[in-house]
């Protein structure tokens, strides 16, 4: 995950009493002849010599081919909530675990296949190679589970810790890939990079979502109820189902993200742009808060920066929240009430959500002067960047002031300033059937349309 949600809990999985499977380190899997050691502690792979990718000794080509031939399931929000409302019963927890297990190896195999099809010189780059090996490693930890059905507590705990390790391993995939592609820009065209990353990052969103959802459900389930121990956000709140907030109020997220971005602006530029939220601010719908926070932060960063840099009058940024008319039909998802009264998950605290908007459109309108016509075609490209080779992320010198500061804001992503904000936001929005549209009025301002699809009616 991009980590802009400022998690306060530590990210390594906590050991549950006497039941922890310690993951084998990556080094023991690969032949020692390669210099591309894929230990997780290696900090500057770019200093190493470029090398051959290591052998796939523990995951055979046949396995990968077999899995990648299978159809990759397109995840919907309804999939994630189908196991029930927290706290899940033991049976429901097993069902969630087995569902997750059925999807993950296939997804990982598809990613490995896609990486293998990149040019040889690109995958030889130490950064790209590291990511490739991460995927191989993760698949190898899941393969022993492939033919088992999880039906007892120990197995489920083991499985969940495997998932936690997977989430942790792939935490920084994006900055590392970004560095890698930047180093390889002579050998691969921007179009190819964009095509690969579009597909890869979208798949990554789904994979992480499945894994994190199960982890969150695990920690808010009846046998293991301990939301504070979860490595992924698992709020103890009746409207949450795992990582999904069924009563997410976008206006609140807008205001909190805007406040955060405005503080950075005030610190760095001495100015604090103003904003207005209009439309229907009381709107609520079902969505993943982490995703929405990321997208809104990126879009608001753009709007705020443009407003500050505009020499003329500083007009407030207008954010309009437009809910889709409620679904008139029957509820899309029916959930039984929680199995037991635990914490905030009490039977009578759960309210039916039948007036939830199925989707929401958020329009961000600024007076920042617009996007120049020659820049406009490039805003969706992953490799479009004003970074030069010397200004590596976190280095600071030519980097965008806003991004540098936001990097230091607790677990911040170092990809900011590389021009990944817009395409990545779009990947998140489109994941559940939404999208982002950008309309520039050069000389006046920019309108950005963020369309989000939620789950719809849940009962």
């Amino acid at each position, binding site marked *: 995950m991009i980590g802009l949600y400022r998690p306060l809990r530590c990210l390594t999985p906590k050991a549950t009493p006497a039941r922890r499977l310690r993951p084998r380190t990556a080094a023991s899997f690969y032949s020692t002849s390669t210099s591309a050691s894929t230990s997780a502690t290696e900090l500057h792979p770019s200093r190493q010599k470029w090398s051959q990718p290591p052998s796939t000794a523990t995951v055979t080509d046949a396995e990968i081919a077999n899995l990648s031939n299978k159809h990759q399931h397109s995840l919907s929000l309804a999939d994630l909530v189908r196991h029930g409302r927290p706290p899940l019963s033991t049976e429901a927890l097993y069902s969630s675990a087995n569902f997750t297990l059925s999807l993950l190896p296939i997804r990982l195999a598809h990613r490995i296949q896609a990486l293998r099809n990149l040019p040889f010189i690109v995958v030889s780059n130490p950064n790209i190679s590291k990511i490739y090996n991460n995927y191989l490693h993760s698949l190898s930890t899941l393969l022993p589970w492939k033919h088992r059905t999880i039906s007892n507590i120990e197995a489920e705990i083991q499985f969940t810790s495997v998932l936690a390790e997977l989430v942790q391993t792939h935490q920084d995939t994006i900055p590392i890939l970004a560095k890698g592609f930047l180093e390889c820009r002579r050998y691969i065209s921007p179009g190819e990079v964009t095509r690969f990353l579009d597909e890869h990052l979208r798949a990554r969103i789904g994979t992480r979502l499945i894994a994190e959802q199960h982890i969150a459900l695990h920690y808010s389930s009846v046998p293991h109820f301990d939301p504070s121990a979860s490595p992924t956000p698992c709020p103890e709140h009746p409207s949450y189902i795992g990582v999904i907030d069924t009563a997410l109020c976008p206006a609140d997220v807008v205001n909190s993200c805007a406040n955060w971005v405005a503080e950075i602006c005030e610190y760095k530029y001495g100015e604090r742009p103003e904003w207005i939220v209009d439309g*229907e601010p009381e709107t609520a719908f079902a969505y993943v808060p982490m995703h929405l926070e990321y997208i809104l932060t990126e879009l608001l960063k753009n709007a705020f920066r443009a407003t500050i840099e505009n020499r003329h009058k500083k007009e407030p940024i207008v954010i*309009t929240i*437009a809910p*889709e008319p409620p679904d008139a039909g029957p509820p899309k998802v029916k959930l039984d009430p929680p199995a037991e009264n635990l914490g905030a998950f009490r039977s009578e605290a759960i309210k039916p959500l039948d007036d939830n908007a199925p989707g929401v459109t958020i329009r961000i309108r600024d007076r920042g002067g617009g996007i120049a016509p020659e820049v406009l075609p490039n805003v969706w490209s992953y490799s479009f960047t004003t970074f030069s080779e010397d200004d590596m992320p976190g280095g600071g010198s030519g980097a965008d002031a806003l991004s540098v500061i936001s990097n230091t804001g607790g677990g911040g992503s170092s990809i900011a300033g590389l021009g990944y904000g817009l395409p990545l936001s779009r990947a998140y929005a489109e994941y559940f059937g939404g999208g982002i549209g950008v*309309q520039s*009025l*050069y*000389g*006046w301002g920019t309108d950005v349309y963020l369309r989000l699809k939620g789950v719809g009616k849940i009962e």
Partner: protein
Amino acid sequence: MSPSAVQHATKTIRLTSAWRSPARSLSIATARSRSDSRSLAPFPRRSIQTATKWRPVQVLDEWVAKEARPISLRQLMVFGRSLTEQRLISSANYVRTELPTRIAHRIRDMQRLPYVVVTNPHISDVYDLYYNAFDMFRRVKEIKTLEENERFCQEIARMLRAHLSVIPKLAMGILECSGLMEQRELDRFMNTILRSRISRRVIAEQHLALTETFNSPWFSPGAKLSEGEFIGEVFLKCIARDVIERCGTAVQALARSANGPDVQIPEIRITGHMEASFPYILSHLEYIIGELLRNSVQAVIEHHARSKKNQGRPPPPIEVTLCEAQQHVIIRVSDQGGGIPRDILPYLWSFSKGPKSAQRLENLTQVPLMAATLQELRVDGNFSGLQDGKAGPTPPSYAHARAHDGSLTSLSTRPPHLRLGMGLPLSRVYAEYWAGSLELHSLEGYGVDAFLQISKLGNKNEQLATRATMDSL
């Protein structure tokens, strides 16, 4: 074939008015089996005398082989600015060869469409009109004198009048054929043919206007024209704000008289770069702005009436923002009319619409009447059209304005309830014709933002279908 034989052949396949009443369910087995539940009206009796449609193709081939020579607004202006007899004759000869060339390309397009589509009565009518026009213009000899030019201009005027109903006919034909061809193909065909039609009318009307100017008593060659005037049809300085205000007032008046005195009409507010201006063909601009404002006003009225919590409050205004940059002017029309319903959204830019096709077809049958008689069916008789001289600037050729603006004016002044479903796609054809663009963003449940981008410099060539475009000058 001699011309008289062609005429006779044309007459024998002219379909009688019997097909206009859908109650008569005449059909031929082959046509019915292909279209049955998908077409919107029972197919009338088809012509079986198709042999007469096989006209000598060699002549057409010769003209199809020629390339159209596109022109830009700036060229039109510069050409007309210093008008002499020699230039007028040269303009006449340009038109003389361009018209048949461009028509020939479109006739060839139509000939390549599926047989079942071209034998649809509406499409078939248009085909005949085009072919006759082609036949007529290709025989015109080189023009050398002003008298020959006069005769030529009369021919042009006659053709322009005869072709006034082409747009509604094509639209009806496309709707009826929506089950017979892929939607994308149909839309592409319609866009191409409409674009070409605009191009022919632009050069034809421009030449008529120049002739009129040349012949008018006040004209002397080399006279300097001030900016607030026309060169032919081209208005040198469309001030965006004025055009929007005029169109806005007209649309509001139409809405008021159509919806009754009790209904509140939304205000239209203009902000931004108020001095933005550019050269353009005024009737095109008025059509596009008119369509956008009509849509917005109608949507706001209906949405406001439906939502209960808005009772007693005035409807939210429509905000028009003008943005002027070095090379473009962008006009944004922002309304709170509830957005575009999900089921219509995929068909927004299509001429072969989805769910509302049957109703559109019904409405279109009323438009040919309006196009033919310009004064007819104005809402209350007192409503003044956009270019009849009572409001706003007029090109000097008043008489010709009536004839050749008729097709757009009548479409623009139809009552608001008559939904034709072509406003947006046709506006986009006009916008893109001079290398501009029209985009729409809908916030479902809230409203719509429309973005019209216009090139300010007038040096972009017409976007014709057959050529790659390059800037001139």
